[in-house]
């Protein structure tokens, strides 16, 4: 038993990936609304892994990740919707979007790198609000509150074996399920590689002690900028997938402060700097929000427990309260997160590895 469990815990990514890859074949509901919800969950996992680069590895508090998520979605939309003359195809647009968003991350990072802790948090928070308001007010470009649509599905116009890929995406949500799952798997793989790379070590060194890191020949400025860029790029990828799966950017409020906080809470709840922790945190918080809460609401409706429609009796009405209580409990009893990175656990409990 022990060895089986050891094998599984060493390769948890492979096991989870295999289960998720087979799931749509055995659970027909994943071909319907549930598939869309799980797709959204995967997208948030990607977003959270991006945020984790800054908050977890590099120790920079970022309160505006949703802005980069949104910028990624809007740049993709501008390059693909019929109202603009570009329409360069999803893949190329996603690549441009990721590069542009990473550049915007650098542009925000460069002047603010001297700031630490709370001050950086305030700047990123402010940037998040500015970005949202700009998206709303720049109507000629962003469509204002209507957002930009229709964002064509990936592969629109590309025909494989007589079927238009775009059409396949539009008809069957399982295409998006697999696209986002594959993207998530790619991001997890890349993060694993990064953790053990020179850059990953430099992120951690700067988080732990900037002065000592510079005495090791590490340029704190460059290291922090790279974390900004990497975070923004991954958030942009999530944004591209999001806009494509909804076939619209949705309105700018989809990328507001609440979204940033939700993702930040997921990372903290799961375990700062921990890949499995981040994924679990998202699965719990966002899964609760996008899968469990709507399901519980519809159940309450079906059972006719709440005929007056009072929010006190609806599950969604209690959503934020439950979030809050859950976070307080986790921080009280397990401050390093549900699946902590080894380092944080060591510090908070003084264990040896």
């Amino acid at each position, binding site marked *: 038993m022990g060895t089986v469990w050891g094998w599984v815990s060493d390769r948890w990514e492979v096991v989870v990936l295999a289960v998720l890859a087979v799931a749509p074949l055995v659970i027909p509901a994943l071909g319907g609304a549930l598939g869309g919800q799980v797709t959204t969950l995967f997208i948030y996992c990607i977003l959270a892994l991006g945020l984790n680069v800054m908050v977890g590895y590099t120790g920079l508090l970022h309160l505006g990740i949703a802005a980069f998520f949104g910028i990624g979605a809007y740049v993709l939309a501008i390059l693909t919707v019929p109202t603009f003359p570009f329409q360069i195809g999803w893949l190329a647009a996603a690549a441009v979007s990721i590069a542009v968003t990473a550049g915007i991350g650098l542009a925000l990072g460069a002047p603010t790198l001297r700031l630490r802790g709370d001050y950086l948090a305030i700047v990123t928070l402010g940037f998040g609000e500015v970005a949202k308001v700009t998206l709303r007010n720049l109507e000629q470009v962003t469509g204002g509150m209507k957002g930009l649509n229709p964002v064509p599905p990936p592969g629109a116009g590309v025909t494989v074996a007589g079927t238009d890929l775009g059409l396949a995406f539009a008809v069957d949500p399982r295409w998006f399920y697999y696209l986002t799952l594959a993207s998530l798997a790619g991001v997890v793989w890349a993060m694993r590689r990064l953790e053990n790379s020179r850059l990953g070590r430099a992120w951690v*060194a700067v988080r732990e002690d900037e002065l000592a890191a*510079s*005495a090791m*020949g590490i340029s704190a400025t460059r290291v922090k900028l790279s974390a900004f860029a990497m975070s923004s790029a991954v958030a942009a990828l999530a944004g591209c997938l999001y806009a494509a799966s909804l076939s619209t950017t949705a309105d700018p409020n989809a990328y507001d402060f609440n979204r940033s906080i939700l993702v930040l809470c997921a990372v903290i709840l799961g375990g700062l700097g921990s890949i499995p922790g981040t994924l679990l945190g998202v699965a719990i918080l966002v899964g609760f929000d996008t899968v469990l809460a709507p399901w519980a609401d519809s159940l309450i409706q079906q059972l006719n427990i709440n005929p007056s429609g009072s929010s006190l009796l609806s599950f969604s009405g209690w959503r934020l309260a439950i979030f809050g209580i859950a976070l307080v409990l986790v921080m009280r009893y397990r401050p390093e997160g549900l699946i902590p990175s080894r*380092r944080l656990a060591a510090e908070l409990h*003084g264990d*040896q*590895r």
Partner: protein
Amino acid sequence: MPILEVNDLQAGYGPITALHGVSFDVEEGELVAIIGANGAGKTTLLMAISGIVPALSGAVLYRRRSITGLAAHVIMRQGIGHCPEGRRIFSRLTVQENLELGGFTQRDRWQLRRDIAEACELFPVLGTRMTQVAGTLSGGEQQMLAVARALVGRPKVLLLDEPSLGLAPLVVRQMFDVVGSLTARGITIVLVEQNARAALALAARAWVLEAGRVTLAGTGKELAADPRVRAAYLGE
């Protein structure tokens, strides 16, 4: 020709000037000591040399070329290692990870492995603690790790800030033995110490720092025999 030359260096923090024009020089392969009381500016001097604190005026020359005003990581990459005051080890990381970060600039993995093995030869206890989280080491072991980490970066000149601070007498001896042996490896040492007796015994030359100025200079022996030094720093 001195490998490191400090000319009339002034440095400080914000409105406070901690160094009021300090000059000294080190020959290649030499061990020199800077001694002085708390707050004399010893730590500031090392930090100004390694670029952590910006110099207000004056110059630092390394192999006759000015390194004044360069960023800390650039100065380190030129060959000036700094083992900062208070150890500053990465306490949440393992001993192994600390040493690997010490060799961050070494891109050849095999060379890095050799450098780490070599540093562990100097402090054998570290070799037995590689997977331990550094914050759980004893104070002496943490100091050894700090010095070993600086050595993995293969410095030509090593700035050592109070390597004996807070250590048990037996460990202090061991530490000074290692520091004294480093010059045989071709490493030039600038040793900052409050333990003046031990530092002067090792140092070819030494400078006494008081309130940000050099007040005395000479060979280690001369200073150890100087009545002013004996009264103020050797407790006699």
